[in-house]
């Protein structure tokens, strides 16, 4: 298969996506099935729960701190900070998004004028 992948780039793309897709489906399904049948210990359940929150936090932070000019990064961090406060106060997704985006646009505009 290695030779096929190397020699035929078009087929290689299909094979690569199919393998990644199948592998991803295994990642998505097998732990759920195994965990449901075997049953996780309280410690393992707790570790998995914390790991999930950690993954989501890491995704939020990496999306909130984009690679770009300082004005964009600063505005993005400020917007996410304000969005976090609104979320903690129980705001809906729409409110968090609208308020956060408004803060981002205003801060970005201001920063570009000042800097």
């Amino acid at each position: 298969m290695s030779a096929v992948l190397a020699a035929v780039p078009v087929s290689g793309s299909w094979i690569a996506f199919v393998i990644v897709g199948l592998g991803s489906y295994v990642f998505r399904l097998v732990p759920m099935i195994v965990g449901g049948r075997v049953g996780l210990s309280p410690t393992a359940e707790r570790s998995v729960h914390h790991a999930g929150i950690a993954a989501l936090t890491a995704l939020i932070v990496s999306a909130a701190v984009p690679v770009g000019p300082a004005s964009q990064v600063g505005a993005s961090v400020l917007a996410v900070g304000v969005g976090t406060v609104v979320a903690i106060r129980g705001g809906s997704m729409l409110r968090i998004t609208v308020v956060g985006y408004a803060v981002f646009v205003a801060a970005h505009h201001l920063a570009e004028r000042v800097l």
Partner: protein
Amino acid sequence: MSAADLAVGHGVPTATEQPGRREAARGAAAMLPLMLGYAPFAMVLGAAIAAHADPAAGWAGIWLVLGGSAHLATLRALDDGSAWLAVATGLVVNARLIVYSASLSTVWRRHPGWFKAVGAALLIDPTWAVAQSRSGEPGTPADQRRFYLGAALTLSAGWCLMITAGMVVGARWSERLDLGVTVPLCLIALVGPRLVDRDLRPTVVAAAVVALVARGWPAGSGLLVAVVLGAAIGTVRRTSP
């Protein structure tokens, strides 16, 4: 048909049909703002697919991979000429799905096999977050299923449409709007209440620091480190006196 079957929604929908539809609509509505946030990324991915040597394979990757980061990483590695590196990169980036799946094993224990098979195929960061969030709310397992499927199918269809649009029009217009910031805002909305959970605070802080430090690391490896650290903190705090 047993009472248990009816309780988990295996029966013919009768009086619960309307609430069921409402649940699916609620799930779809929960995803709509998030789709707006993902629009710039979808456009960028669409433009990358259009420029790829085999756009049909790239487009098929939307449904095969169903994950923007892994899809784009795979595509870029393929463009660099290494199919095996592309496979490895895509799988490493999607390895966090193991954690999501494992954490749903308890939440979805009462659901039937068909739902696990379908639900797993649509499992990705936002759908995991809504599944976790909905499991803590009142309602039957059938309500949870309808909510999840409403959310996940809306996200998947919208994701596919946006990427396809990106293939046609390119990424330029969406970059002008700077909609990328709405992605973390929507994710915060999904996990908001948990951010102040005292038990989870060390995990959240540690993961945030790791994500900041590891921003430039290759192939989502920073995310994996954050996941491992989060799991370790969960374990240590359990075993500490």
